[in-house]
């Protein structure tokens, strides 16, 4: 297991370098003079020159790349053209907001998806099975931004049950410590704010979690159907084990591996999908940060934002790979 972990980590190195290359060349791939494009038509000669220098575009690309990598290793993600501040200094609150939202979306998706999949498999061909699977099919095809807008319209604007934008009650702002508001409010014992934060998380969490929920439900169902036909499940039932344990202990444990793969993959897609959900719900996360940067042609922020999300994605996949071995001792890595 240790050898596998080390080898898997070593394999990451070329991928991570490749990712920095792609992100690095983004700005250089802009057709025309990047500094001119960033500053617009009215820019003065001097402004263009100074930006070219600031971005290091006046040097040969390999020197720029070496500098870029050096800076990355020292935790320097560049300077935002819009706010003129260090990206590494200002990125965490955005990242925390996205992580909180993604984790909540994933919890919703796993809880509903796995259970719906199990019930569908257990009562195969029942009305529940059909309804759940038709809903799952629709869920897979759902444009997240549309679902988000419809949720916002129905539950917030029409019914007034839940807040439509933001992540906190602006009149009762959360004092940020970790910037993960669920944790911050708990540490401070502010249960009123904790409730507010939860309320703000529900609509975007559901919107973001819908596609993974549908995919997880379908995967769980097919995986459970396979496992429930196996001998050990029949044995467990013959021994008189209670149905609940047969399903949740014996079957689920064995059916969970393909589901776990899907969950890992979806977590990455979720980080990408967050950009849409965050735009709709005014969620101050990394997606929104990148989106605003695009409108301001703030390329250093676009580059670093994308790189950070991609690096997180890569590490999630790593964790999922390592989890297989932990869950299923039959898997041997040589």
């Amino acid at each position, binding site marked *: 297991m240790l050898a596998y972990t080390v080898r898997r980590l070593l394999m990451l190195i*070329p*991928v991570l370098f*490749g*990712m920095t*290359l*792609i*992100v690095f060349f*983004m*700005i250089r*791939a*802009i*057709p025309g003079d990047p500094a001119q494009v960033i500053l617009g038509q009215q820019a003065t000669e001097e402004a263009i020159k100074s930006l070219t220098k600031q971005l290091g575009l006046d040097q040969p690309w390999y020197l720029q790349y070496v500098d870029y990598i050096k800076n990355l290793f020292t935790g320097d993600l560049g300077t935002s053209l819009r706010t003129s501040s260090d990206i590494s200094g200002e990125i965490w609150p955005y990242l925390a907001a996205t992580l909180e939202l993604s984790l909540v979306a994933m919890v919703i998706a796993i809880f509903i998806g796995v259970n719906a999949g199990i019930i569908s498999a257990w009562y195969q061909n029942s009305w529940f099975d059909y309804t759940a699977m038709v809903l799952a*099919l*629709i869920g*897979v*095809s*759902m*444009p*997240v*931004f*549309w*679902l988000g*807008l*419809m949720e*916002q*319209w129905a539950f917030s*604007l029409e019914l007034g049950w839940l807040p439509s934008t933001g992540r906190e009650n602006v009149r009762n702002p959360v004092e940020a410590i970790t910037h993960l508001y669920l944790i911050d409010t708990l540490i401070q014992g502010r249960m009123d704010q904790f409730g507010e934060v939860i309320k703000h998380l529900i609509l975007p969490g559901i919107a973001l979690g819908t596609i993974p929920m549908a995919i997880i439900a379908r995967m769980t169902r*097919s995986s459970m159907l396979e496992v429930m036909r196996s001998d050990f499940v029949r044995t467990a039932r013959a021994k008189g084990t209670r149905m609940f344990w047969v399903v949740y202990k014996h079957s689920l444990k064995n059916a969970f591996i393909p589901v776990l793969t899907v969950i890992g993959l979806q977590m*990455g*897609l979720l*980080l*990408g*999908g967050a*950009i*849409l959900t965050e*735009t709709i719900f005014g969620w101050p996360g990394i997606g929104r940060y*990148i*989106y605003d940067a*695009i*409108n301001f042609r703030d*390329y250093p922020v*676009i580059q670093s934002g*994308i790189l950070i*999300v*991609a690096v997180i*994605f*890569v590490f999630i*996949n790593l964790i999922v790979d390592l989890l297989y071995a932990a869950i299923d001792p039959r898997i041997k890595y040589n």
Partner: protein
Amino acid sequence: MAEIAPQKQVNVSKQPDEEVISPWREAWKGFRRNKLAMVGMGIVLFFILLAIFAGVIAPEGINEQKLSERLQSPSASHWFGTDDFGRDILSRIIYGARISLWVGFFAVLGSAAVGSLLGMVAGYYGRLVDTIISRIFDIMLAFPSILLAIAVVAVLGPSLRNALIAIAIINIPNFGRLVRSRVLSVKQEEYVMAARAVGMKDSRIIFHHVLPNSLAPIIVQGTLAIATAILEAAALSFLGLGAQAPQPEWGKMLADSRSYIIQAPWTVFFPGLAIMLTVLGFNLLGDGLRDALDPKMKK
């Protein structure tokens, strides 16, 4: 045909009723029995017809503005209501089918062509070529796809054409990996070894033996990829990175109507419904094709 028939009967004399059918026809028979797949095909055909005959079907033009009829709710004269410029939403959705199908189809065609070619080269030649191409695929797949698309559009500039290019690029590794793995298995087949033994050229082996035998999974993947591509194109347009006003692209229509959601929810509802139905159609069709064409991939 009449002359061949007796001969055929001799060959299969024990079972005269049994018909010799091609794998494609057998797949079609399986496909026809799959109700969901037929529903998917129906939806897809419906939208294709809408796109082709938009000029005939649509009650009004794309940009016919009647400011006196702004934000009218659905009625007999405007089935899906009107938007903030007084344009008929139904007509715009019908024309929008052209854009979405066009982007979906050509983006996937592009990525399938480039991806298949790279996959074939990697799988057939192996060694260093394979290592390089496969690593590039790994790196591309390491990015969440929509982010990579956003990055490409951020570089090229926002437009529908650039969104199409971005979607084509991000889907290349999916086809590349698929075809590469097919090539690796087909390469071991006896008929390919035989072809090589008789001195057939590599390019001929690839295009006459390897490619035809990889076609079924490419078609399946392609159909499902169109669904994703349409969704991604709508998402990019929604973010303002794809289609630009006044193009009747569904995602763009949604984005433009957002601020009227309280007064006129139908302006947001119908374009989104159109996206969802089209994507659903391609997903169902793709699932059905997979079950019919590739029994091994069946879940």
